[in-house]
């Protein structure tokens, strides 16, 4: 019950019930006032009619104390002649009634022990006599009492009904909320596959439940990804760690000279560096993914970056008996972080160089197309099978063929993170033979950052004035 009292829907219903009560009370007050006025008017009409009738009787001389039939029950009468002598009276003479309708309280009317209030009017007749007619308000009082009682019952009924409705509505909604609560509780306790059942009515609760279910699926997917990365990371780190252990153990057991020890330590250091490199690569990806760089974006020259790459990597390709072809359109700008863009391109270009055999042709193209600036990096190496092209951007993913070469398997993840940060679209395709990597730089990238620059100009203008 306390839970019920604390529910929002019940409180809302209670509020509505109170509001209804206020409406009902207002309606009652208004209609009560109207009804009472109407009844009073009727009483006044009766008095007026009586006065007219009695005045006629008086003129005809037939009105005197010996004719009691003239006075109906509930009607009171006082007739005084010009000098103040009372001719007919069943109204206390002490009560002075003015010419207008006037109500007399029971205390002024000692004659009637039922003591009802009286409404009376006095008129002056043509011969100077004064006629006062009063009407008992017993019926009016009874009507008033009846109205008040009826209203009391009505109010009580409305309140009870309202509260009952509130209780029922909140019990129904509570049950569904409770169901969601229960399911969520189960999920918290480790049953990640539980979902909230839908009623199929597509009401607010169904929609809420569906949203929660979608959220749960998303979370489960992310958790799965995270778990996969953790497992992959553990695997990937275990290899250099176990190699390091072997080297150290081997040195401990077999090394006989200082040279042996130095060799073992050097190798251990190398393995150690590999592990550290993996960690810094992971941190780097996470940092790029956090978007912290975005605030420092500025106009950069893609053409210049490509020229540096050409200059830097042509000799390296040459050393591997490969040829680097470049086509770089000058003066192409982009809004971004030049160091990250460089790192992304270096990763892709080095992949092309490292995974291609001697004699391969590597090409690096930067050009402006209708859709925006496009960069293409191709090689004539072994390429990547179509089924694997999606996966190679995942963390720690490595093609079986490249397992033997060194690397953390994180290079392309970083590429993908940097591309995402800049809104660059990367696609892989077949170069027949080899791999073709296409980077599409977004065109509108720079424009969205130009808007704020109008503000300082305006400020300057103000200062000039």
């Amino acid at each position, binding site marked *: 019950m306390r839970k019920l009292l604390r529910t929002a829907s019940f409180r809302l219903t209670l509020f509505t019930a109170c509001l209804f009560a206020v409406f009902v009370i207002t309606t009652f007050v208004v209609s009560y006032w109207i009804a009472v006025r109407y009844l009073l008017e009727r009483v006044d009409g009766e008095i007026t009619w009586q006065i007219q009738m009695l005045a006629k009787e008086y003129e005809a001389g037939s009105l005197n104390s010996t004719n009691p039939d003239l006075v109906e029950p509930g009607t009171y009468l006082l007739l005084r002649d010009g000098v103040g002598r009372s001719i007919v009276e069943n109204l206390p003479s002490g009560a002075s009634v003015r010419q207008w309708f006037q109500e007399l309280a029971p205390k002024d009317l000692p004659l009637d022990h039922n003591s009802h209030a009286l409404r009376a009017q006095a008129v002056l007749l043509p011969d100077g006599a004064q006629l006062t007619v009063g009407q008992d308000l017993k019926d009016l009082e009874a009507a008033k009492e009846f109205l008040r009682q009826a209203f009391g019952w009505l109010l009580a009924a409305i309140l009870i009904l309202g509260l009952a409705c509130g209780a029922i509505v909140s019990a129904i909604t509570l049950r569904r909320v409770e169901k969601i609560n229960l399911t969520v509780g189960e999920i918290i306790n480790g049953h990640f596959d539980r979902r909230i059942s839908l009623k199929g009515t597509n009401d607010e609760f169904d929609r809420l439940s569906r949203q929660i279910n979608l959220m749960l699926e998303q979370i489960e997917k992310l958790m799965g990804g995270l778990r996969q990365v953790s497992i992959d990371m553990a695997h990937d780190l275990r290899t250099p760690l176990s190699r390091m252990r072997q080297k150290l153990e081997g040195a401990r057991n077999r090394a006989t000279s200082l040279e042996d020890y130095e060799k073992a330590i050097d190798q251990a250091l190398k393995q150690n560096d590999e592990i*550290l490199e993996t960690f810094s690569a992971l*941190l*780097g990806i996470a940092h790029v993914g956090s978007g912290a760089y975005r605030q420092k974006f500025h106009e950069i020259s893609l053409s210049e970056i490509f020229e*540096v790459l050409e200059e830097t990597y042509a*000799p390296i390709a040459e050393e591997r008996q490969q040829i680097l072809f470049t086509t770089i359109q000058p003066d192409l700008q982009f809004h971004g972080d030049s160091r990250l863009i460089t790192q992304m391109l270096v990763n892709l270009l*080095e992949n092309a160089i490292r995974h291609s055999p001697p004699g391969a042709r590597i090409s690096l193209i930067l050009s402006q197309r209708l859709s925006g600036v496009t960069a293409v990096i191709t090689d004539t190496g072994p390429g990547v099978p179509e089924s694997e092209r999606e996966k190679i951007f995942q963390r720690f993913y490595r093609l079986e063929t490249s397992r033997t070469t*060194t690397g953390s398997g994180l290079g392309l993840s970083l590429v993908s993170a940097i591309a995402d940060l800049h809104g660059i679209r990367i696609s892989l395709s077949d170069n027949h033979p080899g791999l073709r990597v296409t980077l599409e730089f977004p065109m509108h990238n720079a424009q969205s950052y130009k808007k704020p620059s109008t503000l300082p100009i305006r400020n300057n203008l103000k200062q000039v004035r």
Partner: protein
Amino acid sequence: MKILVLEDDQETASYIASGLVEEGYVVDIVTDGKEGLKKAIDEVYEVLIVDRMLPSLDGISLVKGLRATNVKTPVLFLSALGEIDHRVEGLQSGGDDYLTKPFAFSELKARVEALRRRPPMSRIETRLRVGDLELDLLTRIVKRGEVCIELQPREFRLLEYLMRNAGQVVTRTMLLEHVWDFYFDPRTSVVDTHISRLRMKINKGFTQQLIHTVRGTGYRMSADA
């Protein structure tokens, strides 16, 4: 030859200190930021090695404070935060170099030496000379003896950096950062390939080797063997 190490991790601090003492430096270690700032202002040091994260006053604020009081001692930042923007932040605050943890001691040593020999800002050299090799920064002409040597822009920058730091070891990472603006480790032998091409160009017709390989660390340019 005094160096102040501001590092709150005892083990790292003593690792740095013992290595530097072996190299003949006098090393003071301070673990607290505020205390370090006071010491850096009050005493004269050749180089300050500052960890970015220090108790009571972080490294960035410390160096800003130092520069505000007009102390121009070269600062080498040490940090576990190695991303480019962290590095930029460090250098913008008034640091002179930035080294990411973990690092090889040879890397630290090379950088400390480069900072020690850094010429004062006012003295702008226009001509660098090592042995019979001469590099003119204004005309961008490189000559060995009387022979003009044609260099590509990147090779020119590489030679310039080596000559500016003549006599001392420069690591591959230092070269990547200063010559290529690469703040990551390429997976191909970028530095070695370009050094060997540069060597070929400046050694053509000469027998004396000017660029020496320092095993496991980097390169050193000098006229003596």
